[in-house]
């Protein structure tokens, strides 16, 4: 194979740039990987009965990147064969665009599915990222979970949803 000189894409990223799904997966591709599961979250046109115009995501970027790294470590502890890459977009994101992409690779599809599902649940629980919804007639900050690393009940919920 010809040698190519290129910078490998970051595994964990928080950025205003549009998300490149292929790049997320390529950051963790390995010769033994038999299964790649990619989760992409897209901005929906309706939420809670409101016609959404666009979203604006705000993040505490350095801590958000650390949270992705932590979540990937939690997943690898549970599913040692799986590796994760996570990119989250910030700033204005339009309807139909991706706000997040998570890639999970593993020799085993069960582990790739579980790690990917676990990651999205944990991101929603602990990553310092906030969704500002601009809808027809107003705007609102969406507030979900208190980010609490020590909340073991939350972690169990994420594991259950990952079907483990």
């Amino acid at each position, binding site marked *: 194979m010809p040698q190519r000189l290129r910078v490998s894409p970051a595994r964990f990223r928080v950025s205003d740039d549009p998300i490149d799904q292929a790049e997320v997966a390529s950051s963790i591709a390995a010769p033994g990987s038999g299964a790649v599961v990619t989760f992409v*979250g897209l901005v929906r046109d309706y939420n809670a009965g409101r016609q959404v115009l666009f979203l604006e*995501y*705000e*993040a*505490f970027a*350095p*801590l*958000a990147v*650390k*949270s992705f790294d932590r979540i990937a470590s939690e997943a690898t502890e549970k599913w040692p064969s799986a590796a994760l890459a996570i990119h*989250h977009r910030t700033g204005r994101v339009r309807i139909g665009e991706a*706000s*997040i992409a998570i890639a999970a690779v593993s020799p085993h599809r069960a582990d790739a599915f579980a790690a990917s599902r676990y990651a*999205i649940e944990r*991101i*929603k*629980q*602990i*990553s*310092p*990222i*906030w*969704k*500002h919804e601009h809808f027809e007639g107003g705007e609102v*900050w*969406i*507030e*979900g*979970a*208190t*980010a*609490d*690393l020590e909340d073991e009940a939350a972690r169990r919920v994420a594991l259950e949803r990952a079907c483990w």
Partner: protein
Amino acid sequence: MLVTVRLFARLREIAGAPEVQVEVPLGATVGDAWAALSARHSALAAYATSISCAVNEDYARMTERLQEGDEVAFLPPVSGG
């Protein structure tokens, strides 16, 4: 001593700035910095039981002691994904 406080999302809007300086006594905790800030902006009180925090870009507890120049971040309930 002075600490820097970073605020996000609705907290940032209530305080009217993404970053403010707060004077706290020597040996103060993150919780003390929050109390000082809440005294300035009464609308923050609604978040007293739902915020979490970070110190110098790492997750922290409200009981953590601060040092001069520390950067504290208060995080309202998150909604990424």
